């Protein structure tokens, strides 16, 4: 027995610790945060823990930068460290830094304790890293869950609020349906090819001519639905508005940026690498999803009184735009996606920053009414919100415009100009919900009886918001907002750095 074991003992897997450093940093930071969060003194819990989270994200960014330009496979082919991973990790960690600052003094962190809150955020980020770097079905699924589970908890983090819990449960149930779908899809992919590695799957498809096999395609179909769900693409988007609205706003901000980046990273890897030989089959359905998503996101966001809900629908629409970059299956398309994710995140996070600030300052919560009179009350925040809305709407001289321009260019280059045309026409609808926000901010008058000063109680959710409705939100919000808004403008005018950043995004995917 021992003999046979000895004969079968394989070589221990080679682990490139340096390459793995972003993941290790995140996991280590998570555990550290958790432990420090148990400390007695309140100051440590409320100040040091967020600092640790911030440091962790910073360290991760440092690791990412130190790995810049590399293209290596980690741990027996489980992970692929390449420019795509690194770029998206930057987006995610950037989102993490902002979300940490936003959550610093947030009620949600109080409710489930700071240590837990921030370590979950870091674990989620780790899951994202795994998801986008993964080049193996098993790892992908683990990554997917490592991403999802912390977010389920974080969504429900304001345990004293019904909405938060509802959001958590909804996310969990619907998310698990999605996970199960993905899992079944993965099972079928594995069944059809006998492989779990992405490139091996691609090879097997070509070798055994599986591109039109029903079993294989059923697997692709289930993966499509599952990932469409994770990336909140219509018609699998329905959890998004509810969860975004119910979840603590810093969590929503984090999700809207990081989850999206991670989901698209996974989609790109799975579809552009593993099942690309069957592109002819899946491309049309993704185009259809893109179109439906753009329509649903844009029309859904109209006349939503809740800012978070509006931003949720808007993020659905943005996901639809991003999908346009994906369905092209070109190098430029992937670059455009990455650029868009980078550029879009700035404005989106800035918007959430202001929403949070107003949640804390007024009794209106995330209602658009909370922004009334912002132009005179808080000019800095007003400018931030304005810039972010213009950026999301894709107005020139903002980052959002550059992102769309890049998408349009990629589409035109791939002979999909009509898709770009649909994109821009549908994005016109988005003016109808972004611009009224701007108008609300800057229009002089306030309607009597509904502004903060008159103290009309907010009906839903109640007590916590109302209690918080005094004083000014912390300086860090203004700082974050201003920095993001400045970045929006700077990248709107000088976008070349971003393009340089993403120039190599598709290297290693083997796209044309």
């Amino acid at each position, binding site marked *: 027995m021992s003999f046979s074991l000895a004969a079968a003992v394989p070589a221990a897997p080679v682990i490139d610790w340096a390459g793995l450093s972003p993941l290790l940093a995140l996991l280590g930071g998570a555990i550290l945060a958790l432990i420090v969060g148990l400390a007695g003194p309140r100051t440590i819990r409320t100040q040091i823990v967020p600092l640790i989270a911030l440091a962790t994200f910073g360290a991760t960014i440092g690791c990412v930068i130190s790995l810049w330009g590399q293209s290596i496979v980690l741990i027996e082919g489980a992970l692929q460290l390449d420019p795509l991973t690194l770029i998206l990790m930057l987006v995610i960690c950037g989102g993490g830094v902002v979300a940490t600052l936003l959550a610093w003094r947030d009620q949600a962190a109080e409710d489930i304790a700071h240590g837990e809150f921030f370590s979950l955020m870091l674990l989620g980020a780790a899951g994202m890293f795994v998801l986008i770097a993964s080049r193996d079905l098993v790892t992908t699924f683990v990554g997917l869950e490592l991403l999802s589970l912390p977010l389920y908890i974080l969504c429900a983090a304001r345990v004293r609020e019904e909405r938060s819990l509802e959001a958590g449960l909804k996310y*969990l149930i619907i998310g698990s349906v999605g996970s*199960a779908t993905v899992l*079944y899809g993965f099972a079928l992919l594995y069944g059809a090819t006998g492989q779990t590695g992405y490139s091996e799957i691609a090879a097997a498809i070509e070798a055994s001519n599986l591109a039109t096999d029903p079993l294989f395609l059923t697997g692709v179909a289930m993966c499509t639905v599952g990932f469409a769900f994770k990336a909140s693409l219509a018609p699998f988007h329905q959890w998004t508005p509810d969860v975004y609205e119910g979840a603590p706003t810093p969590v929503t901000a984090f999700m809207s940026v990081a989850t999206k980046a991670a989901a698209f990273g996974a989609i790109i890897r799975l579809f552009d690498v593993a099942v690309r030989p069957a592109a002819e089959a899946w491309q049309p359905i993704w185009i259809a999803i893109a179109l439906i998503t753009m329509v649903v996101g844009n029309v859904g966001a109209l006349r939503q009184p809740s800012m978070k809900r509006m931003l949720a629908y808007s993020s659905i629409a943005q996901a639809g735009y991003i999908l346009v970059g994906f369905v092209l299956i070109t190098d430029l398309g992937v670059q455009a996606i990455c650029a868009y994710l980078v550029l879009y995140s700035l404005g989106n996070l800035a918007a959430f920053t202001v929403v949070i600030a107003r949640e804390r300052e007024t009794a209106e919560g995330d209602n658009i009414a909370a922004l009334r009179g912002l132009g005179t009350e808080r000019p800095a925040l007003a400018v931030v919100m304005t810039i972010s809305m213009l950026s999301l709407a894709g107005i020139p001289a903002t980052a959002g415009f550059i992102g769309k321009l890049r998408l349009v260019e990629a589409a035109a280059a791939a002979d999909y100009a009509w898709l770009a045309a649909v994109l821009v026409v549908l994005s016109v609808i988005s003016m109808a919900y972004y611009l009224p926000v701007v108008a609300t901010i800057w229009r002089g008058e306030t309607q009597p009886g509904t502004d903060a000063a008159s103290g009309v109680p907010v009906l839903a959710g109640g007590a916590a918001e109302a209690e918080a409705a005094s004083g000014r939100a912390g300086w860090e919000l203004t700082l974050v907002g201003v920095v993001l808004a400045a970045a929006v403008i700077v990248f709107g005018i000088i976008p070349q750095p971003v393009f340089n950043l993403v120039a190599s995004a598709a290297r290693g995917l083997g796209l044309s």
Partner: protein
Amino acid sequence: MSVNWYLLVSAMIFTLGAAGVMVRRNPLVVLLCLELMLNAGNLALIGFSRMWGTGAGEIFAIVVMVIAACEVAIGLGIIVALYRRRLPVDVDELTELHG
């Protein structure tokens, strides 16, 4: 016994689980139905693993078990929290967020 059969059983379990999610109102039972769906995936994985004779499917199944357990733990946690808030333990009543 060919793998086909196992797959058909797995497909049926998946379907039953999906139907359960759609019809049950008690979140506890919904969680159970989700377990069913994951288990369907597991059965398919084990079946394929047997078909190909590689262990990858088994590993996958084990990982899925862990994941299922984690999901359950979190799901139950939320349900308990809901119950504590004296909120209805009924997914149809959780419609504060909509529109």
